[in-house]
């Protein structure tokens, strides 16, 4: 399958700190790739480089076949990005917020009308479309952020912490929404989060990032298997038998990687 995102030895150094350290990974067409890691792992930094919003210190990347450093506009035209703290113009309605984004993407109003309606329908905000966004709850804002991303009709969406600040129910509904976008529309998703056990349910593959380095990559099953092997080798039978039978959760794998550091 073709890759929609490819990075090669991508590195970003702030002062003396390596925020992203020789990162090489790829996101394949149509999959949901979970980009996981604790706070400060370098997830946001990586995304900013993928969108051409921040220049890598070294290494390179390709997003939908374009180099974000050379052709940031081409990337931005095609990729839907939802930043960490989605912001809206609070005094404008949801619809006019989306319309503004549509205009920034040079969509004529005649075309954008339908797209906005569709997007709002998908995130179940059609009934609240004419409320000012200032009156929205956290969960509604998050869903509106996803609607906004859909306005471009993107092949690839990048979501930075889409579940931040939501209650378990909110998290589930957002994740289900993401899953359905991927399944029904074939959109590839790069999903950043530090919440593992929630996100692992929807991710096809994950990459685990710590201190700028990719410490693990693969499907959950693969990681779990590796985790068990390592666990068996190192723990000499400690832990419950259930773990060893493959019920190990991503969380355990995750913890294992970070304890070593």
């Amino acid at each position, binding site marked *: 399958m073709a890759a929609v995102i490819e990075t090669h030895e991508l590195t970003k150094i702030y002062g003396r700190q390596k925020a992203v350290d020789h990162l090489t990974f790829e996101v394949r067409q149509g999959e949901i790739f979970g980009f996981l890691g604790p706070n400060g792992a370098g997830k*946001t930094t990586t995304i*900013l480089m993928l*969108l051409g*919003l*921040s220049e890598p210190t070294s290494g390179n990347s390709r997003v939908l076949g374009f180099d974000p450093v050379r052709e940031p*506009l*081409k990337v*931005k*035209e095609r990729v839907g*990005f939802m*930043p*960490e*703290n*989605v*912001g*809206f*113009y*609070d005094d404008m309605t949801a619809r006019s917020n989306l319309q*503004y*984004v549509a*205009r*920034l*993407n*040079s969509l004529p109003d005649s075309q954008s009308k339908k797209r906005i309606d569709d997007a709002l329908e998908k995130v179940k905000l059609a009934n609240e479309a004419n409320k000012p966004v200032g009156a929205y709850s956290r969960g509604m804002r998050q869903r509106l952020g996803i609607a*906004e991303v859909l306005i471009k009709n993107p092949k690839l969406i990048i979501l930075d912490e889409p579940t931040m600040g939501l209650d378990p129910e909110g998290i589930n509904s957002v994740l289900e929404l993401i899953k359905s976008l991927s399944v029904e529309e074939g959109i590839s998703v790069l999903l950043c989060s530090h919440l593992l056990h929630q996100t692992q349910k929807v991710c096809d593959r994950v990459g685990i990032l710590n201190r700028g380095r990719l410490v693990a990559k693969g499907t959950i099953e693969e990681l779990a298997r590796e985790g068990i092997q390592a666990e068996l080798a190192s723990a000499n039978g400690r832990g419950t038998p259930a773990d060893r039978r493959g019920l190990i959760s991503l969380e355990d794998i995750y913890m294992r990687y970070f304890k070593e550091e």
Partner: protein
Amino acid sequence: MFTIFRKEIADHFNSTRFLILFCLVIGVALLTTYTVSMNLRSEISGGAKIEYLFLMLFTTSGQFFSLIQFIAFFGPLIGIIMGFDAINRERSAGTLSKLLSQPVYRDAIINAKFLAGIATISIMFVSLVLLLSGLGMVAIGVVPSGQEAARLAVYMLISIAYVGFWLGMAILFSIILRSIGTAALASVALWIFVSFFVGFGSGLIADVIAPTDQNNPELMLKNARIAGAISRVSPVNLYSDATSTIMDPYRKTTKSFVLVGPMEKISMSRFNSALSLWQSILVVAPYLTTLVALTAVCFAVSYLVFMRQEVRSI
């Protein structure tokens, strides 16, 4: 870029604070013009025809100040209020990173914001001057001559550059300072400093460089010249010097802005001949250039800082 421009303009005209400010300016201006025109009418009644009567509507002081003094003083506030949260509000609301992830050039954002501010200021000034002229025509019954209209146009141009400078200043602060409150305070502080203290300061510095001597007129002249040069660092002085020259054809130089009553002015005109429009423009051209250059510097610095700034909101 046009999309952002359009939104910014709409934002300006919809914002409450802009409307309040606009009403305030219009209200004070109307009041001043009204009192001035009443005074003028009573003083000129029966007298001979006076040249440039129409312009006196703007230069004569009403109760406390003339219209152009009012704008000189209040104009900066208009610019500051329109610009002090241009970028940092978007940054703190999280809309900046969204804007930057859309397919627009980064400089389009700041260009559009600046241009939208200038356009709003222009609309404001044009409507203000037209309104006041209309009122003046009705009140004193004089129609402006072509030359007077041209002078008014130059006056508007200078005013727009002047407020534009403050707008650029405020936008610069809104880029450098992440907190909206700090940016507002910083711009207002600069405004007060430039409006009030540069005047005093220039006198002080001039005294230090060239101490005056009551008996030596040459030294006193030198002192005054130095003070004048230093005070011209301040855009407020630049502006009031320039506008009083263009609006008052009898002023040959841009030096010291002395208030003269209408009758004195009329009697002065008996003995002096007026500067032609072209001559007046020549006198103020350097001032206008300096104002525009100052604005350009502000904008250029803002532009550079903004283009290099990290995207992530902190």
